[in-house]
């Protein structure tokens, strides 16, 4: 028995003195690495644009045969193309105490492309296994490797073997951002660009274009294999040109968790990882719920001044789905589809998934059933549908899982659907929960086939949600697309706390869809509104005609979910207008129908009940004098702070001088009751962003 406390022991256990030899070895290795990083960035900066464009013609051919992973390199001026055999030279340990090399910012540099060069797109052969879910519906078709296109310049470099070794030891490249292995794309409209990055080039998937707003040399995550769909920030639109704005709701929150993780690791997230609406919707707002169940939710509309541009207004549209009391929860038939491939072997992946599921069991009824299917090298049924009252059995099966093998996602999905069908609960919730790090690399031949499959199953009443785990390999877009096609949510789980939020507190929400295909449409009144901008929802935009077309799929709202959309509008006569009047366009102002002068616009919401095929319509005018009810002030202010933060992270194109400081102040004012501490955590996160941007 020990007299001292463990705290005392921890403090007073004295490590053996460091071995001088080991110390020397570490020093040498570190200096070699240092040398490599810096020498490379200097050498890389040398060739002129013209030179590399010429060399590209040659190297592309040479590269196409090299069977190694391809990675993108920084940008036009930082090119270093050499055959792989020569590439090893700077890797040798050859550190000499020498004069400091010229200071070069090795990581991210604004790159300018001279206007005289029409940059061809050069695609490298992507020798990584094909990413699975590059769905043609959302993405441009893949370009053949040898067809130059006009849009961007992508420079490709072959990964060095040693780098790969280092990477292998660092599956979480939190701090190992490699200056020279970032992907870069340069916009043809010649803006200065900050490079964000990914190691794996995939045609179309990674055409990451940075916008002018982020050109200030801000350092961003050049992190590896996490994939995000690229999208442009919604522009300001003139009501006279496009009076109607249509989009689908989005209750996903994956973006927020991902951004949080990056910021907590001390780096700013990639621009495309920041989806404003998902950041906003991460938080719960007290939008009023309808009195009767006939209607799953009712819209709340508020009008307030824009904190980041004088003379503009913000219109909040909030909806909150009614929450089901526990005893009314329908029967649940849940099939867990767990990725147990080798890449899940990390505490924040499979073990976290296991713990998360254990949490979920507590919120289910004893008669609900859970089945477990795993997929890795081969797919297999681990647990046939088992009532939750045999919780021990479920936990046992769950905890016995070990990661190993490569990933074959498709087989697992089919098996999971088979099980779900076997134990189908009529009138209940039949859902597959897919937990993965998104590494669906092996065994899929036809991407669209799988997507179609998920859609067909949805028609049968079996829905799919995707829980993303881990970092470095996460395929956000895949998760989004699958969940969208399967009528589910995609959530990114980085901590057990997040698992609790998503799975337990929102268990009723994520699992019990109360309205599906929810679409919003706002028609602005040209006599009162000059311009408008939808904040976020870029990836959810719909065509005007899609609104009334029930065949067009849209997002779902679950029990207790809140969805918030924010428009920024410029009232007619405001100085803040960005777009000039058209010289020739007629003035439609006179034509406005009577009695609408007090309206900014008109809101329409379409939704279907969970088992319905025909959509219902909700309508209400957006009144100029709507204001913000006192009970909602803090929610409006907090959501505005989050929107401001997300926009700054995306480059702050429309937020003027708004800074992290302002966001912090605003959010602090609006913490409200904050029972789970999520809002306080947000404030902390903004501080992290401030730090990450630094200097």
């Amino acid at each position, binding site marked *: 028995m020990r007299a001292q406390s463990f705290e005392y022991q921890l403090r007073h256990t004295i490590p053996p003195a460091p071995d001088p030899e080991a110390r020397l070895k570490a*020093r040498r290795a570190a200096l070699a690495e240092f040398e490599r990083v810096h020498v490379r960035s200097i050498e890389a900066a040398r060739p002129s644009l013209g030179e590399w464009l010429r060399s590209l013609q040659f190297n592309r051919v040479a590269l196409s045969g090299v069977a190694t992973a391809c990675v993108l390199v920084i940008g036009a001026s930082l090119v270093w193309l050499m055959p792989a055999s020569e590439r090893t030279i700077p890797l040798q340990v050859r550190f000499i105490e020498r004069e400091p090399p010229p200071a070069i910012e090795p990581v991210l540099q604004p790159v300018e492309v001279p206007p005289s060069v029409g940059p061809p797109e050069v695609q490298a052969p992507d020798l990584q296994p094909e990413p699975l879910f590059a769905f043609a519906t959302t993405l441009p078709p893949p370009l053949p490797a040898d067809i130059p296109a006009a849009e961007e310049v992508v420079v490709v470099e072959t990964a060095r073997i040693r780098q790969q070794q280092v990477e292998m030891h660092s*599956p979480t490249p939190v701090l190992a951002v490699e200056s020279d292995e970032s992907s870069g794309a340069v916009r043809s409209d010649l803006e200065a660009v900050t490079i964000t990055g990914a190691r794996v080039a995939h045609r179309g998937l990674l055409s990451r274009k940075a916008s002018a707003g982020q050109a200030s040399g801000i350092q961003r995550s050049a992190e590896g294999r996490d994939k995000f769909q690229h999208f442009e920030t919604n522009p300001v639109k003139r009501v006279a040109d496009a009076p109607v704005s249509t989009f689908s709701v989005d209750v996903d929150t994956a973006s927020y968790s991902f951004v949080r993780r990056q910021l907590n690791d001390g780096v700013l997230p990639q621009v495309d990882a920041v989806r404003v609406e998902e950041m906003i919707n991460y938080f719960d707002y007290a939008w009023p719920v309808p009195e009767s169940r006939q209607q799953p939710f009712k819209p709340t509309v508020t009008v307030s001044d824009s904190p980041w541009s004088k003379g503009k207004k913000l219109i909040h549209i909030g909806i909150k789905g009614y929450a089901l009391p526990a005893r009314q929860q329908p029967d649940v038939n849940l099939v867990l589809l767990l990725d147990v491939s080798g890449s899940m072997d990390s*505490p924040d992946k499979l073990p976290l998934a296991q713990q998360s599921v254990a949490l979920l069991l507590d919120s289910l009824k004893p008669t609900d059933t859970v089945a477990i299917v795993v997929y890795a090298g081969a797919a297999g049924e681990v647990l046939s549908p088992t009532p939750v009252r045999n919780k021990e059995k479920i936990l046992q099966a769950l905890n016995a899982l070990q990661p190993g093998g490569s990933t074959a996602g498709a087989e697992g999905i089919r098996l999971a659907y088979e099980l779900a069908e076997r134990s189908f609960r009529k009138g209940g919730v039949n859902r597959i929960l897919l937990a993965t790090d998104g590494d669906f690399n092996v065994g899929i031949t036809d991407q669209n086939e799988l997507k179609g499959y998920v859609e067909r199953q949805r028609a049968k009443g079996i829905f799919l949600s995707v829980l993303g785990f881990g970092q470095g390999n996460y395929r956000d877009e895949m998760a989004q697309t699958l969940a969208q096609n399967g009528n589910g949510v995609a959530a990114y789980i980085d901590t057990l706390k997040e698992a609790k939020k998503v799975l337990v507190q929102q268990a009723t929400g994520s699992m019990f869809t109360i309205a599906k295909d929810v679409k919003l449409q706002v028609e602005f009144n040209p006599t009162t509104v000059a311009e408008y901008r939808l904040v976020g929802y870029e990836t959810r935009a719909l065509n005007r005609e899609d609104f009334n077309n029930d065949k067009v799929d849209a997002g779902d709202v679950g029990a207790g979910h809140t969805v918030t959309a924010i428009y920024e509008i410029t009232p007619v006569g405001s100085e803040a207008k960005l777009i000039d009047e058209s010289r020739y366009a007629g003035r439609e102002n006179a034509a406005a129908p009577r009695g609408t002068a007090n309206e900014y616009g008109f809101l329409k919401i379409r939704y279907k009940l969970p088992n319905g095929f025909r959509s219902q319509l909700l309508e209400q005018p957006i009144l100029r004098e709507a204001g913000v009810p006192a009970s909602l002030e803090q929610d409006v202010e907090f959501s505005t702070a989050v929107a401001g933060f997300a926009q700054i992270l995306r480059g702050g194109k429309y937020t003027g001088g708004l800074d992290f400081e302002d966001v912090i102040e605003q959010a602090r004012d609006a913490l409200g009751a904050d029972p789970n501490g999520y809002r306080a*955590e947000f404030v902390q996160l903004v501080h992290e962003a401030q730090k*990450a941007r630094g*200097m």
Partner: protein
Amino acid sequence: MDDQPLSGLIRRAQGGDGTAFAELVDLHYDTIYRFAWKWCGHRANAEDIAQQSCIKLAGSLVQFRMQATFTSWLYQLVISCARDWQRAQQRHEHDALPENEPPADAARPEDSIYLAQLLEQLDELGEGMKETALLVHAEGLSHAEAGRILGVSESTISWRVHVMRRHMNTREALISGGV
């Protein structure tokens, strides 16, 4: 070392000055190594982790922003390397021999054994517990600092500290009760 010379050193190293970087490594190797040793309780492993950390430092130093304190940032880096290292170890374990025997290489051998047991217990208590214990108790950082390093709130750290204390109390009571 004072803040001024240190930040000057960091800036020079960030600018590509190898001598400055070497000096930086020399200055911090001990901190890195000692922390790694307490993290894993094993000399050779700690040396491995320390070396990985130094290598990683070379690549990611440019990311360091002067607003954070360098040592906090360094702890973050070492923890990340240590976890990577552990993952790599676990991967190898699948097809290699079972866990290596607990080594006795602390200044006092019984300390090592106790530390090894303690680390194991902390690991079992949950993710982040061991790191919390090391930062707070071994390195003497405040809860707020530890929170910043581990990317969680101060209250989470306080809570973890409390949980660990409670757990150890129960354990010690069991042991001294002769059960």
